[in-house]
């Protein structure tokens, strides 16, 4: 029998301690295979969820399926259109996620079998999961206006995904003669990024003021009011002569000539209920619904969006599938990148807890949207949310808009903070 020396004892107890801690920290290994999560869509929601699941529990195997090799953000794409930044500056790859141990598959998901818990792709591959996270963004209602369909986008782009259409719209605005007309047709609610169309009008006006000051922007809205309207209107008055005879921007609400019935690609016209308006550049942002795959899988309600439980983002239709981002009904959270990121972190924590056999933790959410109206003039909206009595609720007293009587100094700071936000949220998601 060997004597237990102090040295041996340490070795033995060290080994048994290592075993004990291995057992304590790898609950999934006991049951055999590691738990599997498949994430559908590598945009703001999907990429953030994939990364944070790996951070919260590195033993979970995470596979992210996304058809595009690189992602272009929708946010700050309006600054690409005005020429203020390059298209490359809003392009992100997936190497960062791979470093966190996420398996990235370049393919498009064609079906999800919620019963068998298997995701299949157009490339013919199958991916079994314990839990699935779906963040496919939005798809477009191509039958919204007469004469309007998907084949139109080479001439009348929506530019609502970032990427190639953003470049088309930028080039069209750059090629337009001085004195030309840009027509923007924002969609009815709900849609991705409520302040986006008005930020776009501001950014295009910024470019036109400096380069083609005789030109005009006409917004034919499908609504009676819009996000941050007071702040946008104030900024437009200050920088673009809004509501004067010389106004560079004209906004028509749905009842004052905005309501659109038909679009003509051949004539480059937008037919409203009162007038038909000819545009040198036309940007129709069509009405929206959840990304097509959500409907294919049966995750949508009759309005085309996905009902979820706000605590876990698990679909209320299919168990073990969580829907986040623009596709989900998460109101009062808006359809924004910040909200998608916030929802992703809540869903990630819920998925990790549920896979481990526990309860989903208490969630917390934040949203912010910045818009730059003119050089040195940034504005924002923000809100903090909590989960109460089975619902996502705004925390009373929090959030709201930048004040109307803000000083120039603070507006200039907000522009710097808007650009910081862009750098930080993209790094949080893809870095």
């Amino acid at each position: 029998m060997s004597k237990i020396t102090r040295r041996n004892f340490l070795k033995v107890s060290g080994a048994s301690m290592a075993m004990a801690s291995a057992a304590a920290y790898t609950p999934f290994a006991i049951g055999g295979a590691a738990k599997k999560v498949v994430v559908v869509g590598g945009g703001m929601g999907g990429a953030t969820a994939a990364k944070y699941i790996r951070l919260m529990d590195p033993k979970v195997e995470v596979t992210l399926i996304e058809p595009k090799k690189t992602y272009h953000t929708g946010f700050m794409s309006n600054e690409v259109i005005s020429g203020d930044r390059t298209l490359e500056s809003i392009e992100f790859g997936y190497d960062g996620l791979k470093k966190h141990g996420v398996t990235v598959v370049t393919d498009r998901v064609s079906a999800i079998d919620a019963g068998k818990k298997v995701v299949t792709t157009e490339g013919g591959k199958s991916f079994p999961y314990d839990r699935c996270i779906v963040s496919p963004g939005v798809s477009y209602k191509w039958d919204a206006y007469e004469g309007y369909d998907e084949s139109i986008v080479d001439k009348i782009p929506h530019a609502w995904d970032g990427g190639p259409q953003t470049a088309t719209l930028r080039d069209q605005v750059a090629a337009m003669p001085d004195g030309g007309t840009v027509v923007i047709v924002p969609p009815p609610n709900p849609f991705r990024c409520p302040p986006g169309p008005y930020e776009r009008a501001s950014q295009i006006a910024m470019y036109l003021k400096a380069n083609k000051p005789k030109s005009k922007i006409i917004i034919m809205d499908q609504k009676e009011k819009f996000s941050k309207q007071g702040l946008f209107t104030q900024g437009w008055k200050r920088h673009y002569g809004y509501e004067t005879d010389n106004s560079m921007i004209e906004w028509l609400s749905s009842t004052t000539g905005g309501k659109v019935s038909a679009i003509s690609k051949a004539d480059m016209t937008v037919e409203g209920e009162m007038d038909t308006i000819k545009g040198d550049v036309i940007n129709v942002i069509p009405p929206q619904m959840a990304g097509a795959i959500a409907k294919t899988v049966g995750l949508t309600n009759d309005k085309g969006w996905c009902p979820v439980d706000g605590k876990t983002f698990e679909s209320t239709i299919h168990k073990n599938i969580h829907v986040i981002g623009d596709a989900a009904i998460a109101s009062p959270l808006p359809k924004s990148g910040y909200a998608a990121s916030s929802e992703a972190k809540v869903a990630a924590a819920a998925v990790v807890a549920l896979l481990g056999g526990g309860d989903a933790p208490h969630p917390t959410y934040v949203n912010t949207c910045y818009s730059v109206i003119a050089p040195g003039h940034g504005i924002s909206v923000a809100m903090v949310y909590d989960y109460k009595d089975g619902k996502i609720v705004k925390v009373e007293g929090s959030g709201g808009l930048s004040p109307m009587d803000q000083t120039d100094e603070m507006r200039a700071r907000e522009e710097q903070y808007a650009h910081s936000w862009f750098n930080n949220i993209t790094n949080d998601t893809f870095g």
Partner: protein
Amino acid sequence: MGTKIKMMSAAVLTSGLLLSGAATAAGASADALGYTCAGCHGFNGSSRGPATPHLASASQEYVVEMMTGYKDGSIASTIMGRIAKGYSDEQFALMGEFFAKQKLTKPKQEFDAKLAKKGAKLHDKYCEKCHAEGGSSAEDDSGILAGQWVPYLKYTFADYHGDGRKMGKKMKKKMKKMNKKEGDAGIEALLNFYAEAK
């Protein structure tokens, strides 16, 4: 102020321990709260700039003090006032706990080596006492200066000199002394010194 906050966060910590498993039912965890700030302040609180400040490695007390000031309006802000109003003192303590344990990744910023050298001397003379290790230490609950984004530090100095933020009595005295002797050039040198930090 400092001791009051320390006592409060100790109370939070103890109740957290007592509740332990049940704590999840009571409210969001430190991690969950901290993660929501990343979109603006950077992954784990290291900001990619150009202006929004880092939070990583700031002391818990400092975060609580700032959040409290934003919430009651005594510290000027573009957006933090609106955000801070969404949380309780207990949640501020949890956020502070989260960011205090994060390591700061200092960004590369442009600086003038000569001015930075002068700044180092000024920092030693007027500021090191409460902003130890060249402004890298969180120990005195005074905020991280070394590696902080220069535009943010400029805004902060503007707020201190206007009525946006109040300096502690002792810091004010040192600042006055430095200002009298060095003027705005002194601040400029300090900013270059903080930008140089690696």
